[in-house]
C-alpha cells in the first residue's frame, strides 16, 4: 500500500506500558441464557498490538462489542483511557475505532461520503486533508467517488478500516481483519497495522489465523467458552510453552536406542534412521551438548540435523485441549 513503510518492531524491545483499556470482572449473559463472557479481567497496554485468539463462539466478538458499546454488559466495568464505557461513554468511545468482522456498508453511498460520515459521527470537525490521507494510505483514493457497491471485497475491508480511522482513534479494534482476504492484501494489512502502532495507536485484533498473531502481536490473550484462559507476552509464551525438537539423521540406522542414552528420552523414527530429541526451551533436561557427547560415546554418528520449534498454533491447540 502506498505511503506505508513497514517497520517491524521486535517485541523484545517493547517495554510494558500503562493500561489503556481495563476490563474488570466483565460478564455477559444474553437473553437466551447463553453466557458469552464470564468474569473477564484484562488489561490492554497503551501502544501494544494485542491478539485475542479463540475458536468460533469463544466470546471474542462479544468482548469487543461490549467494550465498544454495541453489547450491554451484564456485570463488570470497562475503562478506556480511564473513562468508564457506560458513565463516560462519549469520552471512551471517541478514543475507539472499530472494524467489524462483517463487511457491513451502505451500498449506495460513496467512499468519500461514508468515511466523512464516520468522522462526523464520532464528533470530529470535517477535515478533508485527513480523510484524503487515510484513503491514500489504504489505496482507496482513486475510488473516492465510487459507490461502495462497486468495490471488491478487499476494498470494502479497507474501506471499513478507513471509516474506523477517520476520527483518529487511539485504540483500534480489528475483528478478524484478514478473514477472506488474499495473501497480498493480508500482508498489506499487517504492514498497515504495524505502521499504525508506530504512530501510537493501540491495536486489538481478533483472529483465528494463529500465524497472524504470531507475526504481529506483542501479547496474546486466549479466550475459550467466555473465559480468558491465558494472557502472555507472545515471545514469553513461545518460550514457556514452546517445545523444540532436534532431529538427527543417522549415518547407520539402528534398531533400538542404546541404554546409555535412555536419560535423554529419545524417540526412534524413520525406520531407525532418525533420532528425535524433544526438549523444553527453558531446558530443565540435559542439554544438547550432553546428548551429542553421549551419542559420540555410544558410537552413533549422524549425517545431518535439524531443529523445529512449536508454533503458536500448536500452543493454542494444546491450550484448548487442556481447557476441555
Amino acid at each position, binding site marked *: 500500500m502506498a505511503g506505508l513503510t513497514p517497520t517491524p518492531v521486535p517485541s523484545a524491545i517493547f517495554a510494558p506500558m500503562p493500561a489503556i483499556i481495563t476490563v474488570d470482572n466483565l460478564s455477559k449473559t444474553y437473553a437466551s441464557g447463553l453466557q458469552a463472557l464470564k468474569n473477564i479481567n484484562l488489561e490492554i497496554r497503551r501502544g501494544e498490538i494485542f491478539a485475542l485468539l479463540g475458536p468460533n463462539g469463544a466470546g471474542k466478538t462479544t468482548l469487543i462489542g461490549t467494550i465498544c458499546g*454495541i453489547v450491554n454488559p451484564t456485570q463488570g466495568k470497562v475503562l478506556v483511557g480511564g473513562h468508564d464505557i457506560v458513565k463516560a461513554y*462519549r469520552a*471512551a468511545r471517541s478514543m475507539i475505532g472499530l472494524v467489524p468482522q462483517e463487511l*457491513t456498508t*451502505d*451500498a449506495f453511498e460513496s467512499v468519500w461520503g461514508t468515511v466523512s460520515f464516520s468522522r462526523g*459521527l*464520532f464528533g470530529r470537525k470535517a477535515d478533508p486533508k485527513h480523510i484524503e490521507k487515510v484513503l491514500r494510505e489504504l489505496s482507496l483514493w482513486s475510488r473516492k467517488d465510487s459507490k461502495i457497491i462497486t468495490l471488491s471485497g478487499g476494498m470494502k475491508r479497507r474501506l471499513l478500516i478507513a471509516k474506523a480511522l477517520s476520527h483518529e482513534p487511539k485504540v483500534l479494534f480489528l475483528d478478524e481483519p484478514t478473514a477472506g482476504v488474499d495473501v497480498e492484501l493480508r500482508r498489506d494489512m499487517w504492514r498497515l497495522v504495524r505502521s499504525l502502532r508506530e504512530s501510537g495507536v493501540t491495536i486489538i485484533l481478533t483472529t483465528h489465523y494463529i500465524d497472524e498473531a504470531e507475526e504481529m502481536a506483542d501479547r496474546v490473550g486466549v479466550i475459550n467458552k467466555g473465559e480468558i484462559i491465558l494472557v502472555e507476552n507472545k515471545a514469553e509464551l513461545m518460550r514457556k510453552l514452546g517445545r523444540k525438537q532436534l532431529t538427527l539423521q543417522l549415518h547407520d540406522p539402528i534398531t533400538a536406542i542404546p541404554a546409555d542414552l535412555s536419560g535423554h528420552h529419545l524417540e526412534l523414527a524413520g525406520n531407525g534412521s532418525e533420532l528425535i530429541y524433544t526438549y523444553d526451551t527453558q531446558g530443565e533436561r540435559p542439554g544438547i551438548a550432553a546428548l551429542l557427547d553421549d551419542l559420540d560415546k555410544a558410537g552413533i554418528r549422524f549425517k545431518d540435523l535439524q531443529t523445529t520449534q512449536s508454533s503458536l498454533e500448536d500452543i493454542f491447540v494444546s491450550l484448548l485441549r487442556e481447557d476441555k
Partner: protein
Amino acid sequence: MNVHAVRAIYKFEMARTRRTLMQSIISPVISTSLYFVVFGAAIGSRIQHVEGISYGAFIVPGLIMLSLLTQSISNASFGIYFPKFTGTIYELLSAPVSYLEIVVAYVGAAATKSIILGLIILATAALFVPLQILHPLWMLLFLLLTAVTFSLVGFIIGIWADGFEKLQLVPLLIVTPLTFLGGSFYSIDMLPPFWQKVTLFNPVVYLISGFRWSFYGLADVSVGLSLAMTVLFMATSLGIVAWIFKTGYRLKT
C-alpha cells in the same frame, strides 16, 4: 452535544432522499394529483360544497395530512430500519452520540423531508383548486408538529420491525385507515351521530381538523383540542423512544 454527529446523520439521510428522489418526492406528488382527479373532479362535481368551501379545496388539508403522515412514518422507519438490516448500525451504536442526538438527527431528517413534500403537495393543489390559508403560521405549526410526531412514530416502527413486512404493516393497517376515516375527504358532521362519536377516538381527526382550520377557519373540533392532542401524541411517542433507548430494545443485545 455532538453537533457534528447530528449534522452527519442528518446530511446522510437527506442525501438518501436525493438519491431516491423518485420515490421520495415525485411518487407522492403523482398520487396526490390522482386524488384530486378522482375525489376533486369526479366526486367533487357531485358534492360541490362542504360548509361553503368547494369540495376540491376542502380536501386539500386532508390530502396533505395523508401524505405527511404516511411519508413521515415511511421516511423515519426506513431510515433507522435500513442500518439495522444492513448491519451498519454497529457504527451508530459505537459512536459517542447520545440517544437524543440520534433521534433529533433521524427524526429531524424524516420530518424535513415530509414537510418539503407537504409544501410541494400544497403547491400542486394550488394548480387544481383555489386555495386560501387564513392562518399560515398555524398551518406551518401543525405541519411541523405532525411531521415530527409521525416521524417519531416511524422511528419506533423502524426499531420494532424485524422484517420489511412489519415496516409496511402499521402504515397499511393502522395509519392509512385512520387517515381515511379521520375526515380527510369529509367533514365529520356529515356522519350519522353515532359514528361522529366513534370518530372522536381516532387521533387523526384532531390533526386534520386543526390543519383544516388553519386553511379555512373550519374545524370539526376546537383548535385548542387539536393542538393539545397533537402535543399529547408527540409526548407519547417521545416517551416510547426514550424507553427504547433506555432498555436498548431491538437495538442492543
